[in-house]
């Protein structure tokens, strides 16, 4: 590179950096957004339910029902509320005051003592099915534990001969924060890389300053590099900041190598930037660029990346689509590097996929971005 070319590129980078620094909204999206998101996800969002309000209806209280109710009262998963009749409990369920009802009919103890089948009625509000499944699991667990004690106390055979022990690797306490926070980094970088770049470059087209750039002696590559480098630096800054918050503020372990994390993040950042540039070139208008960036990058990163919903359980044709979502590969890398460590087969395969996507989008950007007026 001749000294003249270096000067031209440097001037271009300087212009873009000034543009970023002058507009507070760019800084906001790079540094305020990560803080807001990480705090919301780190402290706010959780899939771990505790103190679920359940209604308990006991039509004829006695010692057997009392021990069962005691089991619910002792459990940290429930906050039992007592109702006199099933009708009032059902009304509370309708009004969303309670999530479920445990109902012991008046012949419960009589049937239990006489050796007949004694059913416990359970009604759950199924609208939030995931929550309902969890609630149901907890009710089942409480019931099984009670059944075991009850059988033992009366010298009866074990209710459940097979017992299941679980060992959860990488996240023994099953804390949802540990997988949500690393996944968020992918979303934050998608926002910085694609949304910000798409908007900024679309603005140049809209205002006609892109045409002004075209009449300068700058080459196509220099214009592109000048646009990419400042946003790359901004994005990696936001990323480092998020990792620091994740590790020091939210106690997410970083079990893999820091440099591997940086390398894969740099790769993903470039992909996000390339997509942002492509969107701006195709749309040339800030409204369309904003909409497209949200629709093709942010929402897929949220829903199709495996960040929240399991990809393996999606229908086949959607699993195919997820392969086109770069965040999918990055989320897999992040969750592995943070929680599991340097698992080379996982990291390399996903980095390879990101590299292919990167080459594809750069070729497209290169072809579409011509120094030519329409």
């Amino acid at each position, binding site marked *: 590179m001749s000294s003249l070319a270096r000067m031209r590129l440097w001037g271009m980078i300087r212009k873009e950096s000034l543009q970023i620094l002058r507009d507070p909204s760019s800084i906001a*999206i790079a540094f305020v*957004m990560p803080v*807001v*998101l990480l705090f*919301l*996800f780190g*402290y706010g*969002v*959780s*899939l771990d*339910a505790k103190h679920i309000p359940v209604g308990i209806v006991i039509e004829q209280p006695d010692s057997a029902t009392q021990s069962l109710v005691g089991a619910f009262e002792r459990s940290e998963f429930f906050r039992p509320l007592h109702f006199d009749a099933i009708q009032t409990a059902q009304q509370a369920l*309708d009004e*969303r005051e309670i999530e479920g009802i445990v109902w012991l009919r008046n012949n419960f103890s009589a049937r239990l003592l006489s050796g*007949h089948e004694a059913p416990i*009625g*359970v*009604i759950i*509000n199924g*609208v*939030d*099915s995931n929550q*309902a*499944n*969890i609630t*149901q*699991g907890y*009710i089942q667990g409480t*019931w099984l534990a009670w*059944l075991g004690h009850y*059988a033992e106390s009366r010298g009866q*055979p074990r*209710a*459940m001969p*097979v017992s*299941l*022990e*679980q*060992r*959860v*690797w990488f996240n023994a306490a099953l804390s*949802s924060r*540990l*997988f949500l926070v690393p996944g968020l980094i992918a979303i934050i970088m998608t926002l910085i890389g694609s*949304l*910000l770049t798409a908007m900024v470059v679309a*603005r140049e087209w809209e205002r006609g300053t892109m045409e002004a750039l075209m009449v300068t002696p700058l080459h196509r590559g220099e214009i592109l590099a000048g646009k990419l480098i400042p946003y790359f630096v901004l994005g990696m800054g936001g990323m480092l900041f998020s990792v620091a918050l994740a590790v020091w503020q939210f106690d997410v372990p970083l079990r893999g190598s820091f440099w591997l994390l940086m390398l894969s993040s740099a790769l993903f950042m470039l992909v996000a930037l390339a997509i942002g540039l492509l969107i701006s070139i195709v749309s040339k*208008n*800030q*409204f*369309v660029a*904003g*909409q497209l960036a949200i*629709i093709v990058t942010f929402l897929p990163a949220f829903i*199709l990346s495996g960040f*929240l*919903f399991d990809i*393996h359980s999606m229908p086949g044709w*959607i699993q195919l689509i997820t392969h086109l979502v770069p965040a999918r590969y990055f989320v897999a890398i992040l969750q592995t590097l943070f929680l599991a460590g340097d*698992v080379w087969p*996982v990291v390399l395969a996903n980095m390879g996929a990101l590299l292919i996507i990167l080459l594809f989008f750069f070729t497209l950007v290169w072809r579409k971005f011509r120094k030519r007026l329409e």
Partner: protein
Amino acid sequence: MHFRTIFALAIKEFLALLRDKRSRFVIIVPPIIQLLVFSFAASYDLNDVPVAIYNEDRGGAARELVSRIEGSPNFQIIAYIDSDSDVAPLIDNRDVLLVLHIGQHFSADLIQGTSAPLLAILDGRNSNTAMVAMNYLRSILLDYNRSWLESQGNIGPQVTLQTRAWYNENLQSRWFIVPGIVGLLILVVTLLVTALSVAREREAGTFDQLLVTPLRPLEILIGKAIPGIVIGLLEATLIIVLMVIFFDIPLRGSLGALYLGILLFLLSAVGVGLMISAIAVTQQQAVLGAFLFLVPAVILSGFSTPIANMPQFVQWLTYLDPLRYFLVVVRGVMLEGNGYALLINQYWPMAIIGVVTLALAGWLFRHRMY
């Protein structure tokens, strides 16, 4: 109030928005594609969870247990392994989510009547998925235990659970998530349409011209709000029709209650959008501002994670989020069959958010001059 001029302004707003072919396209096509893709994708239910069986027991009881797992639609056995060292690579590489270890004495213990333990090793990288898979395994074991006891003629206390789920009888995740996507999509479209409307004119300098016309700020506000509300209403209708036809989501409650909710929700979304637009100097700031609102609004709405699980402080924050109320309305009407009376506590907060944000936007029109 000059209805003719307000009407003319609204027409101008529509034209500014729909004149461009690409703008028309992004308002209509992507939301529909997203509804289709996301509705199939966004589910917490698992099927064909890949598992490996590590069976050290040659007895019939263990064989019977394995065949039950094989027969379950939730699990897919992809490997049988026979040493401890095989476990780590399978889990580390994400080849399986779960390894079930059946110890050497499993069948013997079971026959003797002592406790027969099993060990499940799970990949906890996504702890929710791990927990859901564990629940599936538990219910297989519950059945297994019951039929084992019956086959032994060995009957303990006969207490059973009879569980019924209301409103979403088969506990399908899709019934919960798809109505949420309606709220998400119309919020995105309305917010962007309105957030850019004032900022675009500010950037082009035409907003100052608008302010010196005989139109009063209130009238400008109404003219700017109409396109967002109309587009939001049309989009919501389209999405709800698709939802009922394609995804078989029931529509059990009254349409009137649903549309009242949609209208109030749109009012609040338009209010927030116009407020952002009035604050922003450039379109870029408006889009980024819309984003700074949108992302927390989605996360705090209870769209994907329950509000009840959030700490108290964050729960207070959710009261500022119009999407929070709207999601209760859509799910309430569609699944629970709610009418106006049960939803009144969701309607008025949206109305207040709408009125306050619109008033602020109108005030900012005048008081923010550059």
